[in-house]
């Protein structure tokens, strides 16, 4: 980012942390957490610890980080090197990103930026100006993206609640500040789980690694009667019931369904099962959930990929991230926009723009600068 744009973004972040420190949430058991932050021009700082919110806020205003992170884990020595921190437990976390949902609307609002010269292209190709191969995808989420991500959040909450027995009051949902949502689960029982167990939970909610045997179909299954005795009904609990409800509307259909499965064979059913699981499971990033030493974006801080904040969603249906998470100032500033599809922030619609210098509210200007689509002038 060139200097003038950097100054604008930094100034707007600083003003936010100075005026709106109430947005920044104090994580539970703050003194046992490791904090880290990304600097605008100087890499990552980790292994920090704050004893209270006041100390944290002073740090934010003083150093103006581009991104602020906090460990999902609780440690005895949060500031020690990783081997010496001594793990006490960790919140269970989930990351849902609309960018990973293969949505058809994506092509309307994704662009490719050359990392070498900043050229913006609407197609994925080598840079049309400098021929560099180092290009990066940038996407401006639309309402459709957010709605799709919300559906995943709801599926996830239902799996966590109905199957894993996690109480809704133990789950906190946040907009991530870019294209998705973060779920934090605060459960005493699950806190102690190590990475492999968390990977197992991630697979469970995503429906990964479901095997036909789980619904009674074996490689050598031949007899319909024998399989029916093991095959789930639509009233079953857990994944078995979930699969049955996709395969049939009524339990009377079981013999017909089992016959069809046996006729088509084990491998074909395995594929069908994977497809059902993908659709019924929640699309999460399993790496985030299984990593117990991850520092995760702190609630109430700004995401430098967009200039929007990570904010809580108390009512997921009514939640509008383009209003609730748009927290920067309104003062008008001049920017040169290389290219931008249409986007909405607060009640306003902007763009599309192409190679034009315009006057925008700070929050919209910073949004485009953070996306790499505009520069301050």
């Amino acid at each position, binding site marked *: 980012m060139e200097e003038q744009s950097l100054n604008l973004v930094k100034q707007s972040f600083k003003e936010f942390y100075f005026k709106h420190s109430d947005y920044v949430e104090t994580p539970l058991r703050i003194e046992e957490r490791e904090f880290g932050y990304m600097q605008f021009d100087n890499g990552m700082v980790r292994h920090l610890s704050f004893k209270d919110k006041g100390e944290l806020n002073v740090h934010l205003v003083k150093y103006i980080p581009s991104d602020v992170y906090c460990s999902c884990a609780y440690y005895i020595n949060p500031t020690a090197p990783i081997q010496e921190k001594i793990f006490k437990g960790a919140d269970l976390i989930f990351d849902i990103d609309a960018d990973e949902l293969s949505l058809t609307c994506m092509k309307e609002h994704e662009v490719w930026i050359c990392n070498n010269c900043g050229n913006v292209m609407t197609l994925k190709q080598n840079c049309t100006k400098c021929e560099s191969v180092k290009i990066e995808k940038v996407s401006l989420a639309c309402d459709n993206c957010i709605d799709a991500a919300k559906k995943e959040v709801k599926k996830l909450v239902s799996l966590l609640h109905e199957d894993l*027995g996690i109480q809704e009051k133990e789950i906190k949902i946040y907009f991530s500040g870019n294209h998705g949502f973060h779920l934090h689960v605060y459960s005493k*029982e699950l806190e102690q789980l190590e990475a492999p167990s968390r990977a*197992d939970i991630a697979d469970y909610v995503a429906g990964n690694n479901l095997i036909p045997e789980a619904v009674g179909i074996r490689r050598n299954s031949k007899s319909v009667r024998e399989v029916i005795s093991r095959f789930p009904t639509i009233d079953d*609990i*857990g994944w078995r019931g979930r699969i049955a409800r996709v395969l049939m509307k009524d339990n009377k259909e079981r013999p017909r369904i089992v016959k069809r499965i046996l006729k088509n064979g084990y491998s074909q059913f395995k594929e069908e099962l994977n497809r059902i699981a993908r659709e019924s499971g929640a699309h999460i990033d399993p*790496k985030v959930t*299984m990593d117990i030493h991850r520092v995760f974006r702190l609630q109430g801080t700004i995401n430098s990929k967009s200039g929007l904040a990570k904010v809580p969603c108390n009512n997921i249906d009514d939640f509008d991230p383009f209003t609730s998470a748009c927290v920067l100032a309104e003062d008008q500033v001049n920017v040169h926009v290389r290219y931008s599809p249409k986007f909405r922030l607060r009640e306003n619609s902007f763009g599309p723009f192409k190679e034009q210098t315009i006057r925008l509210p700070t929050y919209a200007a910073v949004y485009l600068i953070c996306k790499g689509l505009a520069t301050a002038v």
Partner: protein
Amino acid sequence: MSKIEFGKGDLAKYPFLTEAGQYLKELDYSLAEFDEQSKMHVIERAYERIITALDGNIYRELDDLDTEVVSFLIALIMVRALGVRSVSRKYSLGEARRTEMFLEQELKHESEERMRAILTGIFNDLFSIDVIQENGKFKVKVADYLKRASYFHDNHWKLVNRTVNNGFVYLNSDETVRLIRDELTLYIYDKINKMELRQLPEAIKTKVNELRNRVVKDAEFKRYFTTTKYPPCVEHVLQVLSKGENPPHSARFLLATYMLSIGKTVDEVCNFFEAAPDYNERVTRYQVEHLTGMRGSGTKYTCPSCEKVASDNNCYRTEECDGIVNPVRFGRGRVGSGRAKPESG
């Protein structure tokens, strides 16, 4: 909560229970008595318990209470006196499998009350798992299940393939028992290590020596097959491990990916790490399987290049390394030798 007592007959099946220790005290045995001819059969029985476990089998005898409880104790003493970690581990596993066999039978066929005694006395008291009976099935809390089953390898154990509802995982009797096998093994292993060794009677010493001869012979046989020459960087990690020190993460990664690249199995690779002071079988296996792509994202990790090994400070290059760019090429083809590279363009 009132504790449901096991009967004395149960102690023959479950000689590791605290009650068995109490029973022994009542019998008032002294170790010196084992030099008497009348006790030789107990020593023989203890030896048999160990050998059966080392051969990978389950010791199925179930004779009188005295013989079973006392031979278990003597076997612990013998394994402790031998002091070979792999033997302690195998013996513990053997005893755990024996217990598993009895528990499986009992959870299938016994009365409600008897079942409650087992679920309370073994599952809850020893291993802090609440197992609840529900319509002929058993259920355990998700966290209790995951702490154990996430380290099992069969897909059948993955949470997604289980019936899970409202925070509980449903299991049949065999699965319920399998859940605690590893902990039982550790529990018995721990008992061996806590054994205090005083002056042993000659009869037991003789049997320990017999055991030692047999174990050493097996070990030499294995060593003969494992002296393949590895590149110096890999040799160095093995040396560090053999001294009982903890090599850094990058060195462990090198060792594991190298061994997998040359065709070693996950089991064989895990064995290399056994000597590390922070060795944890479950974690090591999980990590090695992760490298093979069997777990996690499915990415299969390859052995790092010599350049990367050097940048991690793990390179101990010798002349024999000249010309290779990856440790897996050690002792094989060299760059620039043999076949010429095809010309580009």
